[in-house]
């Protein structure tokens, strides 16, 4: 007797079968497959950050006096505390590296042009949100280094023309040492929300195109690409786990009163290009403080990165070449910072 297959409990409530069928038929060209695998790695790392971050938030206290002690408590008293904290920290670095690779890959394959412009801008926003996320995260334990970094960041924000002081007050709060509340709020609220929104825009773009373009030859999305992404994610997780358990992240020295900085401080590697500019810019440029000029140039750089597809309209390659050059230069500076 012929058996009529009954739809399962889930399938009846979530009728995604047609979508999955399209996905199984979908194929992408090799460049798309490589970018797709990297994208899956980014999503996996985001998942890791979200999970470890949610755990760390159970103990963290966003105040100058309590922050370091609460992190110390996690590291020394809480079971698996050091591992979870180190995974969160190393995971953030890995996420930045994966995003850099993705940005470079997209540019190299010229996938920033029409019809991918919005997706490109979303990816650029994800990158900047991730950098801000890594930076605010590095401030949260309020070590001596965090205190100095916070001072520099608030000084740099204040250099934004016209809106500087208002922006500073908005991000760092009133004077009197309450900046951690706002930084923590950014770290667990606004920045993840921005990143998630942009990622959603990216996923819709990629997903929509996959289903629509499932006819090209080359690689299958399911299971080839999915498996590749999963393998990449597992490999990254294994490396992070090994790093976190063999070399747990140090807590950093406690800030001294006023955190005087007569000793030289090195920046985080992902801020090395900005640090180099701030260090090397002359004290005054055309009558303006050098730092103001650097901050304005950086803002223009952000706008330029977002609007890169507009520069490359009608088959030009200027934006692509410029973008790759800036990326390569930054990578060089970052590499030097890591080696040092």
């Amino acid at each position, binding site marked *: 007797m012929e058996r009529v297959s009954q739809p399962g409990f889930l399938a009846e409530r979530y009728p995604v079968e047609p979508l999955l069928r399209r996905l199984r038929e979908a194929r992408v060209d090799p460049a798309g497959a490589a970018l797709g695998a990297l994208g899956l790695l980014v999503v996996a790392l985001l998942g890791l950050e979200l999970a470890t971050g949610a755990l760390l938030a159970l103990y963290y206290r966003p105040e100058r006096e309590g922050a370091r002690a609460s992190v110390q408590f996690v590291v020394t008293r809480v079971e698996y505390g050091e591992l979870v904290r180190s995974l969160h920290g190393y995971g953030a670095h890995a996420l930045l590296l994966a995003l850099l690779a993705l940005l470079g890959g997209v540019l190299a394959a010229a996938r920033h042009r029409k019809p991918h412009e919005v997706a490109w801008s979303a990816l650029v926003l994800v990158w900047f949100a991730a950098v801000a996320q890594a930076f605010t995260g590095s401030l949260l334990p309020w070590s001596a280094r965090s205190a*100095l970094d916070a001072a520099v960041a608030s*000084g740099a924000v204040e250099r934004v023309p016209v809106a500087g002081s208002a922006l500073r007050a908005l991000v760092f709060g009133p004077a009197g040492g309450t900046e951690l509340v706002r930084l923590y709020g950014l770290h667990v609220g606004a920045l993840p929300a921005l990143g998630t929104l942009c990622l959603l825009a990216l996923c819709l773009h990629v997903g929509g195109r996959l289903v629509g373009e499932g006819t090209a030859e080359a690689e299958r999305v399911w299971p080839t690409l999915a498996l590749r992404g999963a393998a990449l994610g597992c490999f990254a997780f294994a490396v992070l786990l090994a790093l976190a358990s063999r070399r747990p992240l140090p807590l950093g020295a406690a800030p001294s009163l006023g955190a005087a900085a007569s000793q030289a401080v090195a920046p985080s590697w992902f801020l090395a290009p900005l640090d180099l500019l*701030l260090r090397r*810019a002359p*004290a005054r440029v055309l009558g303006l403080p050098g730092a103001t000029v650097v901050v304005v140039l950086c803002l223009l750089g952000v706008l330029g990165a977002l609007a890169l597809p507009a520069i490359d309209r009608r088959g030009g390659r200027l934006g692509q070449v410029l973008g790759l050059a800036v990326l390569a230069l930054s990578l060089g500076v970052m590499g030097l910072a890591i080696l040092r």
Partner: protein
Amino acid sequence: MSDDPKAPGSLGRRRLLDGALAVGACGAAGAVAVPAVRFATPPSEGGAGTSVTVRREEVLSEGAKLVFVGAEPVLVVALSGGELRALGARCTHLGCTVGLDRASGELRCGCHGGRFGLDGRVLSGPPPAPLAQYAVTARDGLLVVEGRRPWRG
């Protein structure tokens, strides 16, 4: 026909409606955004802590002493002749707190390598202006650093 989208009257009306909708949407967004930003901006604080005292011996024995006038860090330093100066310790580059480097007898900012003399002048590095100066007066054997009206140079 009035609902023919190609009819000239209908197109004009549609534009008008679209415009009105856009203006309305912007207004509504602004009505939400402005109070939200105002809420997030902390109210400005009054000039708390307008002066602070420090013992002369403390400054002389260590060469420099960091004190706070309200939230402002101020470094009281002893010049070679025994004269005392109160300098704003906030680096004029991006605001790190500068400290005395005893080996060289200068003030250093470790953030981007700014160097200042004990009189507050910039010696080298990215800081664009000299450190702020505060008035110091002696009262009852103590030094009083006046937080009001610092000056530069």
